[in-house]
């Protein structure tokens, strides 16, 4: 009997109160590219982590060639011929490309003495690059490569590792078109030699180009598997998004006002191209897009954190130059960053100091900061926003995610920002705090604030926004008004499945 190369049977894993992998069954044949598709947070990464040994499963079985195996560490996985290519580089930055590629099978001068045959290693490496058509020099230090180049090195590393199963987690997200074509060539080569690939991707077109079968995962469950030949795109998107929504998001209807922000032809770096949009007074404007589509980059450009190459930004019809966050704050912009622990808060300062950070002039008495006033003001916000602190002198690091986020909101409320950019404001926080944050957003818009909401949670965006901008590959693929927004059409625009 012919066994599939890899087979998962009834794999379960409980990760938290809210999320678990449920009864996952999946098989992978020799020489197959099996695409795994699902929204952010649907459980793809968790499942992959179980296969390559970074997480252990709670129950269920994994078979390779029909034999039950136990994978309890990445070492086990490596021994079984499973290689993982991460979305973010896991290379040794200070070593050369060649050292990284041959890290697991370094050529030795003699078997007994573990002396590395450097000449062989570099010449092997060069032959490999010529064969694959990569314009690299094996002696380059990895630190000097850009993200896309690192990704290609990772792929080479998997290629020479003799792995039988390779997991690729959105390998093209950092690659340009020609680089992606190089990758596809490698994949075809690997397939010919019988290697099986689990390929995680959101991009419908590339899936159709290289995939054999596709499985869709949602809320920790595999919804369905089908052949890519003759695949029905609408069906896939429907599988990804699931059922109809009832209203759960407390969206308060508010009359929109005049235009407050106008972004014209914004281009920055290689990620975002020719972005045009406007924001009205009291409006909540959603921006969605897959990882790497440039959604946070836009926010950083508007907040003066990232350099704008070309394009103009107008606030109240006045052109502004935002070269630093200080400029942005002066223009009335606030930014709740995606990563509140490193960018949003000073983790080792206490709550009042964090709240007054962008508002120093309001709490300082001529030259010095008046801690008494600082604390009085902080106390007002702590009680009004229901921030749960042990004492007011608690460092931000000791608060829960939801309470940290409320501290971040408090500082922008205090600075009376007129335009507030919220980047993943509810990521990783408890439901009660989520509901609070939605209601704080409601309060803000009733106080004439305009909000840009960037989120990976499609439901949240549909639930809270007046209008939604969908990004695909750094460009706006659609602007959808609230009434027309459905999970299906937003995801279609976000995956390049439909063009407006």
């Amino acid at each position: 009997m012919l066994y599939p190369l890899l087979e998962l049977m009834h794999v379960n894993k409980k990760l938290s109160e809210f999320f678990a992998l449920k009864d996952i069954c999946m098989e992978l044949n020799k020489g197959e590219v099996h695409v795994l598709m699902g929204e952010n947070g649907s459980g793809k990464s968790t499942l992959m982590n179980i296969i390559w040994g970074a997480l252990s499963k709670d129950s269920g079985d994994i078979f390779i060639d029909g034999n039950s195996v136990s994978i309890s560490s990445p070492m086990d996985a490596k021994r079984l011929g499973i290689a993982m290519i991460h979305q973010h580089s896991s290379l040794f930055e200070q070593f050369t490309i060649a050292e990284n590629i041959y890290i697991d099978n370094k050529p030795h001068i003699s078997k007994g003495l573990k002396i590395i045959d450097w000449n062989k290693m570099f010449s092997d490496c060069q032959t490999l690059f010529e064969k694959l058509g990569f314009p690299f020099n094996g002696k380059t230090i990895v630190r000097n490569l850009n993200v896309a180049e690192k990704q290609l090195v990772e792929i080479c590393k998997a290629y020479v590792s003799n792995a039988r199963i390779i997991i690729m987690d959105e390998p093209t997200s950092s690659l340009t078109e020609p680089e992606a074509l190089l990758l596809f060539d490698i994949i075809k080569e690997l397939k010919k030699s019988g290697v099986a690939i689990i390929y995680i991707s959101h991009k419908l077109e590339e899936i159709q180009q290289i995939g054999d079968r596709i499985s869709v995962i949602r809320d920790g469950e595999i919804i369905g598997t089908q052949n890519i030949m003759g695949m029905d795109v609408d069906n896939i998107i429907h599988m990804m998004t699931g059922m109809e929504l009832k209203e759960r998001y407390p969206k308060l209807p508010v009359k929109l006002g005049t235009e407050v922000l106008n972004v014209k032809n914004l281009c920055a770096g290689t990620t975002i191209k020719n972005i045009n949009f406007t924001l009205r007074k009291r409006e909540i404007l959603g921006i969605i897009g897959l990882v790497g589509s440039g959604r946070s980059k836009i926010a950083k450009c508007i907040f003066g954190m990232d350099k704008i190459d070309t394009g103009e930004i107008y606030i109240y019809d006045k052109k502004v130059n935002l070269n630093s966050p200080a400029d942005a704050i002066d223009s009335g912009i606030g930014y709740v960053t995606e990563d509140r622990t490193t960018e949003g808060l000073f983790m080792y300062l206490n709550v009042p100091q964090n709240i007054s950070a962008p508002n120093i002039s309001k709490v300082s008495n001529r030259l010095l900061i008046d801690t008494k006033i600082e604390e009085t003001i902080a106390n007002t916000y702590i009680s009004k926003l229901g921030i749960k602190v042990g004492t007011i002198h608690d460092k931000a690091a000791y608060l829960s995610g939801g309470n940290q986020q409320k501290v971040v909101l408090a500082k922008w409320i205090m600075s009376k920002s007129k335009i507030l950019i919220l980047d993943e404001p509810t990521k990783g926080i408890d439901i009660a705090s989520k509901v609070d944050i939605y209601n704080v957003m409601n309060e803000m818009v009733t106080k004439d604030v305009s909000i840009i909401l960037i989120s990976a949670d499609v439901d949240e965006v549909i639930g809270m926004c007046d209008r939604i901008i969908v990004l695909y590959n750094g460009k706006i693929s659609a602007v959808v008004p609230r009434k027309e927004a459905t999970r299906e059409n937003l995801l279609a625009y976000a995956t390049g499945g439909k063009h407006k």
Partner: protein
Amino acid sequence: MFAPERIRLIKGMLLDKVHINVSDLSTMLNVSEVTIRRDLEKLERENFLTRTHGGAVINTQSPTDEDFVEIDDDPFFQQRIEISEIALHMIEDHDVILLSHGLTNLCIAKKISNKKNVTVLTNDLNIASELAANPSIKVIMPGGDLDVNSMTLVGKLTEDNLNNFFVTKAFIEVEGVDPLRGFTVQSMDCASIIKEMINITNERIIVCPYKCFDNIAFSQIGPLNLANKVITNPSIPDQYKNYFFENKIQLFTAFNSYEGGM
């Protein structure tokens, strides 16, 4: 910052803290101490506060808001005002709405005046007389027995009459919210009227101050999931926020972080 805005902030802070000093105010509001003194003088003339050396103390029994002095014995007055502001955003011009008996709904009625051509169905005489002052609002009352204590219409006649109408939004005020007993009110008559009201509306909007949560009143209206929307204050227990979100009921909590804060 303009004077009215400043005075509003000073009032808010005084209500919060009773005593306040000039130098703190001057730093917080970023204006000179002379300006602050002038503001305080003005407020003293209004009988809101008494100036002291270097600061001011609030007068006990300061009127919080001139329009609402008559219900000064209501401990949740501020909360009701905040709830009614959210409710107001849900009422559109030309809407046909229902207001059940209660002080929060009375607050909504007081604020509704800037809407055009709204029709209000209510069994509460206080609400009706409040709305009567506004010519652009049409008030409809069902018949029935007058309950003199609450000034509401109750009984079989009221219930039968309500059945003749259908509204887009019903604002139902409750006195108890509990995971097991659901929504409750004290009066039995009132509960049976409300049971009728929830059948003649498109949208059931429950309103009540935070204090009603984890509280069971005498007479049951129905389970928590009968609501489409709930409007209350943010300090309700977390378990309700979870419940409403998970059961797809929109929970609106009236945050008030822009007022009084700096």
